[in-house]
């Protein structure tokens, strides 16, 4: 398990250019917001956590094709399916590495985004907490949708359609935690993660096995 995790993290760490592009995508979405909504600092301060979360969500969606599509294209997916190592464990390592990569990108860009949107300093720790509890859930759900659509060739739009309903609760609780009393929504976020953590890798494993050509 540790060896798998080390491999996946190394693989993500080697693909810095691709993650840099996603990082820029995140910042660009944040930069677009004041142009769409107007530059009043007071309004941006109020909307900042929601805007950052929407940008993070879009970046997460965009990053998902790296999860299984690349493996299917280069043949690694076959190797994973045949392997005597439990498929769910391989998937778990993959999703963990992916979550870490997204988390790193967000942490790196959090300060610039906060400055651009005139965010309160007190919100930053809350926002970080929602990232810790929310990002893995986004990736686990994204893994399910990614596994269901991996056999289809052009799946980006379908992936978004499949995921948006499932992302709504996460978005609601994450943004509420930043804007109001944090304890209750963080608890809900944690519960969603606790529900997904043991089940999602198994669902993904079953989906990959059943949709192989």
């Amino acid at each position: 398990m540790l060896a798998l995790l080390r491999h996946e993290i190394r693989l993500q760490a080697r693909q810095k250019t691709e993650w840099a592009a996603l990082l820029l995508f995140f910042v660009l979405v944040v930069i677009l917001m004041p142009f769409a909504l107007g530059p009043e600092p007071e309004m941006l301060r109020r909307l900042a956590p929601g805007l950052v979360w929407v940008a993070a969500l879009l970046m997460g969606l965009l990053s998902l094709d790296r999860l299984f599509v690349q493996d299917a294209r280069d043949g690694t997916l076959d190797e994973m399916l045949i392997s005597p190592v439990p498929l769910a464990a391989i998937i778990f390592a993959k999703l963990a590495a992916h979550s870490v990569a997204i988390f790193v990108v967000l942490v790196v860009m959090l300060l610039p985004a906060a400055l651009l949107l005139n965010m309160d300093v007190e919100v930053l720790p809350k926002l970080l907490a929602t990232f810790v509890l929310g990002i893995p859930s986004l990736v686990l759900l994204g893994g399910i949708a990614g596994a269901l659509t991996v056999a289809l060739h052009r799946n980006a739009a379908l992936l978004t359609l499949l995921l948006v309903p499932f992302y709504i609760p996460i978005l609601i609780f994450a943004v509420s935690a930043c804007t109001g009393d944090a304890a209750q929504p963080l608890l809900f976020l944690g519960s969603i993660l606790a529900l997904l953590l043991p089940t999602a890798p198994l669902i993904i494993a079953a989906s990959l096995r059943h949709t192989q050509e």
Partner: protein
Amino acid sequence: MNPITYFANPTHFNRLAGWLMPVFATGAVIAFAAGFYYALFNSPPDYQQGETVRIMYVHVPAAWVGMGLYMAMAAAAAVGLVARHTLADIFCVAAAPVGAVFVALCLATGSLWGKPTWGTWWAWDGRMTSVLVLFLLYCGYIILRHSFDDDERGAKASAILLLVGIVNIPIIKFSVEWWNTLHQPASLLRMGGSAIAPDMLRPLLIMGAGFMFYAGYLVMLRMKTVMLSRKILRLSEGE
């Protein structure tokens, strides 16, 4: 006798459908006739909303059927994955567009009802938002199901999606309603409050029965169509 394998046989299924479809059709006609009479002429206007409350007699049954069909599809998907039977998939393929149309009807009537009641076509009300999400789930299912070249793989992938969806519906509903109480001013009227007058409940239930008969009829009809079109495909491929 295992009922699933029994009715999965097209002959047996056709016999069942041949018996059930006229029953459903008759039931729907009778219930709609009685329901519309009660809904339009023999029920009181609401003391706050006036005559517009009559939209409820279409709006609420449409939501029931939309939700009920999704649950039935998820149950069928579970059976299909365990028992590996194509009838479950045929049911889901047949029921999905029907359910989606009923949900769309619920959204449209809800919007029409919202304008006179709230003064806006769309108010991000908790229930309506949940129905909108249900509509997205239907769309996702339909597109995923028809994206696969291979029917067997498409059936499995979309069955898994249905099961993940049904587990998530309560979470989505809870989150949306929780979010709603945070943001919604309390003065807004809520649709279909807890206490409903018996004079209003009667047409609502009759219309509900009519919608269910009609949906059952449509699903049966579509199941027959799906079975026949698959047979045509098989024959045209010379097997």
